[in-house]
């Protein structure tokens, strides 16, 4: 391969990782939320609010750190709204989640009206010394911004929390059998609220990544369905963090490849190519769903069920 071709390959790999990063954040957050037994379909809304809050903060001149924090905080705020309805008032989780998504789309567009078309400085890349010098792999893997690194490190961290710590055990217990957890004396609603808030923060970061790094600008509805894909990825991953990462990279990979395929002039219509990532996700999802054992072993048994304490 020529030097130019190697550089292209590195660029494609790097682009795949960038495309996958918002999905990693959102899916991991939702995974923790669902492990606690709460189905929050409001990812899309939380991501958009995170994106607009992060962008607005950066645009106002605050640093990137503050912008990321604002994105996460906006996600948490939206998730608290969900927690109030679905946990506090015991409303139907599916309906609340859908409402939250629709609400987030509208509210972010409203809040971000004056931000459309304004520029900000993109989140800078932080090449890792030495590692980033490696040919091809260096620019592909080790020359990203802080959020990309954080999304990857979040996978072992969340796995460790869920499967190695006492708090993670309690969280899974609440998702598995909320009545038993309550009888033993755990605060089901407290655990769930915290899990929902974590999911909100991660969705907010996913949004922040979109508007600060992926395409450093604000466009209405800029998450363009990634929240829904992330939801599918959680099932795809059978609620195991490392599989969520793999799923996100698969989706990101197909997204980027089909873009390049369009460039290379593959004789397939662009619309069909644009469908490919979604199609790939559906196909893998169907294949995974065929293995009921895997799903049954990992799926939180109380997912989406309303908890009544005074049973």
């Amino acid at each position: 391969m020529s030097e130019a071709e190697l550089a292209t390959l590195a660029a494609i790999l790097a682009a795949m990782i960038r495309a996958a990063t918002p999905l990693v954040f959102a899916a991991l957050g939702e995974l923790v939320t669902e492990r606690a037994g709460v189905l929050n379909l409001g990812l899309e809304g939380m991501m958009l609010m995170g994106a607009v809050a992060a962008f607005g903060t950066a645009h106002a001149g605050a640093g990137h750190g503050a912008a990321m924090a604002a994105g996460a905080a906006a996600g948490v705020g939206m998730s608290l709204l969900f927690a109030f309805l679905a946990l506090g008032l015991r409303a139907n989780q599916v309906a609340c989640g859908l409402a939250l998504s629709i609400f987030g789309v509208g509210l972010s567009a409203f809040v971000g009206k004056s931000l459309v078309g304004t520029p900000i400085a993109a989140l800078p890349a932080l090449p890792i010394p030495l590692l980033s010098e490696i040919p091809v792999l260096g620019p592909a893997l080790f020359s990203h911004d802080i959020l990309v690194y954080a999304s990857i490190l979040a996978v072992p961290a969340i796995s460790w929390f869920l499967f190695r710590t006492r708090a993670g055990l309690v969280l899974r217990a609440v998702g598995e059998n909320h009545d038993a957890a309550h009888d033993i004396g755990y605060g089901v609603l407290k655990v769930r609220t915290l899990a929902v808030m974590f999911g909100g923060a991660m969705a907010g970061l996913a949004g922040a990544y979109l508007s600060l790094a992926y395409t450093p600008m604000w466009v209405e509805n800029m998450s363009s369905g990634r929240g829904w894909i992330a939801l599918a990825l959680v099932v795809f991953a059978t609620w195991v963090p490392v599989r969520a990462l793999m799923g996100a990279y698969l989706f990101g990979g197909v997204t980027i490849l089909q873009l390049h395929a369009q460039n290379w002039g593959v004789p397939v219509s662009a619309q069909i190519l644009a469908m490919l990532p979604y199609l790939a996700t559906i196909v893998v999802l169907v294949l995974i769903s065929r293995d009921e054992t895997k799903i049954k072993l990992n799926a939180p048994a109380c997912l989406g069920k309303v908890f009544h304490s005074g049973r």
Partner: protein
Amino acid sequence: MSVPVPPPRLALKGITKRYPGCLANDGIDLAVMPGECHALLGENGAGKSTLVKIVYGVLQADEGEILWEGEPVRIDNPAAARKLGIGMVFQHFSLFESMTVTENVALGTGDPSPLPELGRRVAEVSARYGLALDPERRVADLSVGERQRVEIVRCLLQDPKLLIMDEPTSVLTPQEAEALFETLRRLIAEGRSILYISHKLAEIRVLCEAATVLRGGRLAGRCDPRRETAASLARLMIGADLAPPVREEGTAETGAPRLVVDRLSLAPLVPFATPLADISFTVRAGEIFGIAGVAGNGQAELLGTLSGETLVAVPEAIRIDGEAVGQMGPRRRRERGMGFVPEERLGRGAVPDMSLADNALLSAHKAGGMLKRGLIRFSRARSFAEKVIDTFHVAATGPGAAARSLSGGNLQKFIVGREILQNPRLLIVAQPTWGVDAGAAAAIHRDLIALAEGGTAVLVVSQDLDELFAICDRIAVMSHGRLSPAQPARATSVEQIGMLMGGVFHLDGESRNAEA
């Protein structure tokens, strides 16, 4: 000089708990001494579970006082109860199926020590009290008896002074129950107290030295169960004498075969399901055929194939009146005279949020003539539901009452009644009296017997051996997806059935009888 009498380990004074529209506990007094096994007796809905949940801090009393070793205490949550030294084994286990034994213990004790160390202690305690358990196994793979051991070990690890057991034997084989009693006796000998909830009078009489009886949320009496008879305890518990069902010596042997199951096998459809292997039996007209066994041995799967919810590959494996029905769904089987009462009342036996009339319509539309050219004749559905309510003494506000609003026993009477009034030629009933109090249970038993005497073939699948022995002509046992040969109920002992429940099919029943 007299030895000072120690204060009771636990004393309740005037405990009252109100729910909207009902008084669950009304001024209950109770005292449990150190080293005492104290029975808490009562029908379903008598307030036993509410009372112990108050002791364990799951619920709070509206009035009254709790004294722990003579000192007034507040028990705000289960953690506070555990801190005092109160442990509880729930009737519906509070276990997490996808987790290991050790993880479950860690969750239940709040013990912060690392899991491997906890696992060692689980092994140690289970060995000391004869409760065989593998700490690394996933709870989903354990039998019901083993799951209960997890609960008990979880309590014992906290060295409790008072252990509350909520109907512990309702899910055990007789042998498992006997092993449990041994463990409990060992605990009492160590000076621990046990508060033992049950409505099985026989076991209370062998295990407990004091009893408090509740009825309708009130204190009905106190007694020493060793000095009472089962009948006198029952009278105290129910407030009236019970007429036990009488099954006449039947002519069942001669009836025509109604339901024939012939070498039925079924691979598991979902994880944790039991495969069915080579099941054969015949239920004859006028006969009550019982299938015993601990839950999870394939009964649910067998019932699915019989009801038509699961179709079987070989149609001839299930025959109704000689006709192969293995590939027919529930509706076509009903058309051939089959009635079916599933184990889950809410959700499968009845739609919780629909009225009784609508629920009658669901299974009886054909027999009750409730449809006309595809349109519903609501008046017929209503009158059918009314007839069920009247005939079977269902306590409900009327055919418009939501199924959910009925108590378990009343809903069961309604569902059984709905099937019986369709004059089935074959009735399949799962757990007919699960969670139903003694009065309603006796009524359901009488109805089933009357149905059989009218020539219907009745198949009863139950975990309750007393029930099967009371009403069945022949009994077979399911274990690990296999069915034992059927035994005439009169010529069989509870012990024999218990052996079969443990999966020992090839034991020679005759020689055991001779030894006994």
